[in-house]
């Protein structure tokens, strides 16, 4: 289920091992020619209307809404519509991510024992270590095609080899912000990015078109899940079925027997299977488990997003943020607690906190910019002077979000999708940890911006519960990094899946997406979820011996 980064990595491994695989994908196929997978489609384009206004890559929030509330006092739900939608299309979110693909650090896998518990948070160690995952990280980087500089980040965990490609061209704005950060003692480095800096895997080098995050790549230079899907299909052992919605995993006597799915004409069918790999993304995966009647009390719980701190500066000069991949530089300093952050944490009544990876970024889209200015005579001047696009640059910190029992995905009691199934309801509110860390690191980021000769600076966060629903900033997190809703662990009473992604209760269902994350770290989840999917699929196919299925 799901043809995104997780599902396609699993399909690649399983078909290579000689398995027959059917890939169900509820979205449309705009990626490759199913009759001849070596041929690519030409539907992606540099088109702001199509991709950011008109839901080209799905899901359409009318057909497939989600609902949101902060807590039970909001009633059944406070908002219905687009809640953190990631594309629903062949290739999933891999298609329009701009693909910063860092690895986690060693301590990310044992934050609980390293730093200690935090009140009202379900902090726990992962049932595996960085060393367990390192070979799969290396494989994931080769599979997707990651460009980066192995020696550039002093905080990085050890690697068994270099990146498959060198980094691409730095954006001008990033050269300014990286310089300012360095002057304050921080360590910016070229973002490890899933976009080809040189021809790789039969795909061309990125030509810096700038329509990157939120768009499919017109020349297929992005490390979207094309490579694994193509390889899986070319074995002749995989069948990809777009526009098919899996509505239920059938379970008999504690084992999955296959799935029910709704085809493009609305007809329901059953497919039998010996194993079910679930990679529908960390919102749809728990939804499907719940729709299937699975009852583990932790399914859907411990939902995490990254808590975004946005610090932006108005600059005197134009920095053309519309040229280049959306982000070319990042820094990790705020992921490592230091004396200053310890003091701020204690002042906030917390034993410790930390932030996340900081992306050096601007705003590139003129329609989005135009809608921010008031209408009237001043509009044309605002657009020409462009204080909110051409002359703005800054940072987005993807702050660590603690797992909380109350933050969850469940089934909405009243709202249905177009096929008549209950939609996912998200109940989510921030912990003091994220708020205090954001306040502290927001100030640090602003200090850097002042070193860029800023005319003005502003910080904001997402989520921010003081804004109304429907606005760009609102109580709904903007971050597309979604994790934790089928957490991994050795103990069935405190986790949903085992260390190989297999459901404790139904061991021939394997979860191969970021639902299994135990903590969120402050790094984008995609490379880690692909590494975990490779590991889980390899275990399934017998390459790495998993514990026996009871």
């Amino acid at each position, binding site marked *: 289920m799901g043809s995104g980064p997780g599902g396609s990595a699993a399909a690649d491994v399983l078909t290579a091992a000689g398995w027959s695989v059917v890939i169900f994908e509820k979205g449309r196929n705009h990626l490759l020619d199913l009759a001849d997978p070596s041929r690519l489609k030409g539907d*992606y384009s540099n088109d702001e209307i199509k991709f950011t206004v008109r839901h080209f890559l799905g899901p359409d929030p009318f057909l497939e809404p989600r609902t949101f509330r902060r807590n039970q006092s909001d009633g059944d739900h406070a908002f219905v519509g687009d809640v953190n939608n990631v594309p629903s299309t062949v290739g999933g979110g891999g298609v329009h991510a701009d693909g910063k693909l860092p690895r986690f650090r060693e301590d990310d896998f044992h934050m609980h024992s390293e730093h200690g518990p935090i009140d009202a948070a379900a902090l726990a160690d992962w049932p595996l270590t960085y060393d367990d995952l390192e070979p799969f990280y290396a494989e994931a980087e080769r599979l997707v095609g990651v460009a980066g500089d192995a020696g550039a980040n002093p905080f990085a965990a050890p690697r068994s080899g270099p990146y498959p490609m060198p980094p691409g061209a*730095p954006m001008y704005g990033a050269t300014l912000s990286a310089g300012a950060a360095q002057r304050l003692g921080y360590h910016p480095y070229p973002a490890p990015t899933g976009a080809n800096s040189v021809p790789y895997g039969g795909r061309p080098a990125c*030509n*810096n078109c700038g*329509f990157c995050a939120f768009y499919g790549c017109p020349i297929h230079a992005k490390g979207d899940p094309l490579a694994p899907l193509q390889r899986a299909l070319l074995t002749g052992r995989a069948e990809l079925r777009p526009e098919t919605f899996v509505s239920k995993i059938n379970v008999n006597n504690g084992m999955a027997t296959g799935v029910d799915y709704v085809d*493009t004409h609305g007809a329901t069918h059953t497919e039998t299977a010996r194993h079910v790999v679930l990679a529908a993304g960390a919102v749809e995966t728990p939804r499907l488990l719940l729709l299937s009647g699975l009852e583990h009390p932790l399914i859907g719980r411990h939902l995490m997003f990254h808590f975004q701190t946005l610090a932006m500066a108005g600059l005197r000069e134009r920095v053309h943020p519309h040229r280049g991949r959306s982000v070319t530089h990042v820094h990790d300093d705020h992921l490592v607690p230091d004396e200053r952050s310890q003091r701020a944490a204690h002042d906030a009544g917390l034993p410790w906190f930390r932030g996340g990876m900081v992306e050096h970024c601007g705003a590139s889209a003129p329609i989005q910019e135009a809608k921010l200015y008031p209408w009237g005579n001043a509009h*044309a001047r605002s657009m020409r002077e462009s204080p909110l696009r051409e002359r703005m640059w800054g940072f987005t910190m993807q702050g660590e979000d603690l797992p909380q029992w109350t933050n969850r995905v469940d089934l909405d009691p009243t709202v249905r999708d177009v096929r008549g199934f209950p939609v996912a309801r998200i109940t989510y509110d921030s912990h003091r940890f994220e708020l205090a860390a954001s306040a502290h690191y927001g100030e640090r980021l602003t200090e850097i911006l002042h070193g860029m000769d800023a005319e003005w600076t502003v910080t904001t966060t997402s989520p921010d519960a003081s804004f109304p629903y429907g606005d760009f900033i609102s109580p709904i997190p903007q971050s597309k990094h979604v994790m934790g809703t089928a957490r991994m662990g050795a103990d069935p009473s405190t986790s949903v899946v085992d260390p190989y992604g297999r459901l404790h209760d139904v061991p021939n269902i394997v979860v191969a997406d970021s639902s299994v994350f135990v903590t969120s770290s402050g790094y984008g989840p995609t490379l880690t979820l692909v590494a975990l999917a490779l590991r889980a699929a390899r275990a399934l196919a017998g390459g790495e011996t998993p514990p026996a299925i009871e």
Partner: protein
Amino acid sequence: MPHLFFADDDYAVIEAACERLIPGATDAGVADYIDGLLGAFSTEPPRIWAGGPFSGRHGGDAGFASFIPLTRMDELAWRTRIEGSGGIPEREFNGPVVGLQERYCEGIAALRGDFTTRDPDEQDARLHSHPDFTALLYEHACEGMYGAPEYGGNRSSSGWRAIDFEGDVQPLGYTDAEVSRP
């Protein structure tokens, strides 16, 4: 060019209102963008998603000009969004939906037929007194001004030229030097 949705008088009101929201909107054909959206289903394929991968403005074939066919589901979503649910059960699985066409008809009626002949201050006052419709119109005006010309607005890329934006640049892209230098 005949309009796809608006009657001539209504088109004129929308054109005049957009000009108040974004000076230059008339020359850029912003009202055509809105007319193209509301009348999207009068062509086949409907004018919802322009094709790809290139527009032809910076090399390659003019793929944007061929709109992408919709699936049954896509059509359901976009017809409902544009035409409203109109009591059709298939469109009302979460309740009735007011369509864009109806919102525009009501908005135009609220701005009144003599809108085009009023002085700018009076026009602005009428826009201010209908904030919900004006917000919708402004959203669409921004899209028509700065979106790809194939959707009917941004005529001859005039919206992009006014802000020195190159627009879609594939397959040319930008050189590394253009990315990294001031």
